[in-house]
């Protein structure tokens, strides 16, 4: 039977040796690293900025109740309807309810990982609505009926040739594989949809408690059109996206841009404070904000890992992760991939089913080193492993470690094991590299060095 763990292993075995995939990701990430590092230098004190960001988010999360209360009150005071969704089902029901009430047919969406998290598109399409993703990357993967590959770059795994082919097949329009031409094709389709759409759905990057506003940062202007053209706007956002003060954006917007895409600032940064107010020329007639919990409060209750709620979804940890770079975004089988996904997915979807993601790590710590809000990512993977083994121990691993302990602790047993080991290695030599080799998972792709004729401890004894 296929489980998330077996699926992960199967996909990892297929993708990791794929040199074409590796080349695409390495090239993309190589370019990202160069601009990211240039822009980081624009900060007077990058480490100081990280410390401040970590403190700000931690404070925000530790007083989440107060911030959310203020945020919701201020939004409502300007006529926004605020909804609270405890779980994915409630989130979907609330949004489907609004669509029904509005008699909507066509929905445009800008990028929202929360909508992936609650499988909103599926639910809307199943209920008969036409849903169009307006972020170019999301638009492409939607046409291909694929999930986004990466938090920030949903279509980074595709070459322009593949995108052209997708457009040709699905839209029957792809004059060349030049990015400008392909973008124009998408633009023509989308402009029609913006005008037809009854409801626009967005995500959010930050919720400002002080002013009761949503902050959305983007590069294509699609979120602005999604928000401004349809009569009804819905924002779906996780409750952890709160920032206490408006001025916090002065740090977080450039930080998110630098770490997300290597930009000093993204092209469009917009604040949404409510529906169109009397005397205003544009904006939606009705504005709904859906605040999603979906296990976030459970993570908040975990004193060890609560800092993971500070994540601003910049994707920087994915970009530096050697696991992500070799297995790719789809292998994870989760909405949130890479190190942050491996940390939080067990909290969102259950540890027993998703502990393999915490195991599929060399614990190198590149993620923690890069995280702009200083989430202790790789140590959380260790804690997940500990929690998983406490929750449901693997009898054979426990047995191996139980047998190993006295051997490691007693010099006599260690010395005996050393001698047995040498003999065993000789026998193993007969089956070296074959499936009969007990070290096959190593020796299939790597040579195993022989045991030394004299171990260090044997040498030391001889010296004394």
């Amino acid at each position, binding site marked *: 039977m296929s489980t998330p763990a077996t699926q992960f292993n199967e996909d990892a075995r297929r993708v990791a040796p794929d040199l074409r995939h590796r080349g695409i990701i390495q090239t993309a990430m190589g370019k990202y690293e160069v601009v990211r590092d240039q822009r980081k230098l624009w900060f007077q004190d990058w480490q100081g900025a990280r410390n401040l960001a970590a403190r700000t988010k931690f404070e925000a999360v530790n007083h989440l109740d107060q911030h959310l209360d203020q945020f919701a009150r201020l939004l409502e005071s300007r006529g926004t309807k605020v909804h609270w969704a405890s779980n994915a089902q409630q989130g979907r029901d609330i949004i489907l309810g609004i669509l029904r009430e509005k008699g909507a047919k066509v929905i445009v969406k800008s990028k929202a990982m929360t909508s992936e998290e609650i499988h909103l598109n599926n639910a809307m399409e199943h209920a008969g609505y036409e849903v169009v993703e307006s972020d170019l990357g999301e638009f492409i993967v939607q046409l291909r009926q694929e999930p986004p590959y990466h938090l920030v770059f949903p279509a980074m795994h595709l070459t322009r040739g593949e995108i052209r082919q997708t457009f040709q097949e699905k839209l029957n329009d792809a004059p060349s594989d030049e990015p400008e031409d392909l973008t124009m094709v998408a633009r023509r389709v989308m402009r029609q949809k913006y005008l037809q759409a009854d409801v626009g759905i967005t995500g959010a990057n930050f919720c400002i408690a002080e002013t009761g506003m949503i902050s959305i940062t983007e590069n294509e202007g699609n979120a602005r059109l999604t928000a401004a053209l349809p009569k009804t706007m819905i924002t779906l956002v996780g409750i952890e996206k709160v920032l206490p003060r408006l001025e916090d954006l002065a740090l977080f917007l450039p930080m998110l841009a630098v770490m997300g895409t290597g930009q000093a600032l993204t092209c469009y940064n917009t604040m949404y404070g409510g529906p169109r107010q009397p005397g205003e020329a544009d904006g939606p007639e009705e504005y709904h904000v859906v605040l999603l919990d979906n296990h976030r409060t459970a993570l908040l209750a975990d004193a060890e890992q609560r800092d993971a709620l500070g994540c601003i979804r910049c994707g920087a940890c994915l970009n530096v992760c050697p696991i992500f770079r070799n297995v790719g975004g789809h292998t994870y089988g989760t909405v949130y991939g890479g190190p942050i996904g491996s940390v939080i997915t067990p909290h969102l979807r259950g540890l027993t089913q998703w502990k393999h993601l915490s195991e599929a790590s060399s614990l190198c710590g590149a993620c923690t080193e890069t995280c702009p809000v200083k989430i202790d990512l790789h140590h959380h993977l260790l804690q997940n492993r500990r929690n998983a083994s406490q929750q449901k121990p693997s009898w054979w691993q426990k047995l191996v*470690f139980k047998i190993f302990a006295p051997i490691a602790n007693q010099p006599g047993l260690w010395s005996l094991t050393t001698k047995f080991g040498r003999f065993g290695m000789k026998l193993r030599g007969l089956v070296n590299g074959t499936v009969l080799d007990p070290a096959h998972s190593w020796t299939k792709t790597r040579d195993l060095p022989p045991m030394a004729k004299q171990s260090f401890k044997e040498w030391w004894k001889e010296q004394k």
Partner: protein
Amino acid sequence: MTITLFIPCFVDLMYPQVGISMVRIFEKLGHKVECPEGPACCGQPAFNTGYWDESRAIAINVIESLKAAEAIVIASGSCGAMMSVFYPQLFAGTPHEAAAKSVAAKCYEFSSFLVNKLGVTDLGAKFRHRVTFHDGCHGLRELNNKRPPRELLAKVRGLELVEMGAAEICCGFGGTFAAKFPAISTAMGEVKCTSALETKADYIVSCDSSCLMQIQGLADKQKKGIKTMHLAEVLAQQ
């Protein structure tokens, strides 16, 4: 000074020359070297797999046999991080917490001990080769050990250090990870080897024999023709 050497299990069994080089280097500097017979492993495999009780069963023995030491030098950045960073966490809230912290505070990875504790960078070594250095992740990120190995290599006569692009990217070893996820581990090792080969170095040098086992094992299997050597062995070349 009396230096207590901690030789991790795989160094003992497969790379004894790494430990022997360390003994020779410290003795040449006029220090007394001790190596307790007791502990053969730091307990990291069980710890990293999530079996903390089983890890403590080994780590307690390590702490007991090292608690009287003046300074403890560990022949691996990874085991060094286990002992100086993770022991206090492993024993937090247990009766051994204070002892774990006290031992942790005396633990040094080999290169950082030479440079930061002894203040030595020039060991009079000669090694006429082009070398690239691989930062083991634990040494680099848990112990902040970027500088010491390079300062030591800079003083080796005839040695030319050429940094590779992927010096700080994990080699894919990661303990049991290498055997549990061989395809991912191998891909990571290939990325490392490719970057090292681009430098046209004769040797990849590191503070971690475990990383070098991964890199050398892969390079040999794929006939890449690059050699690996532990920093201590380079520094022992006269």
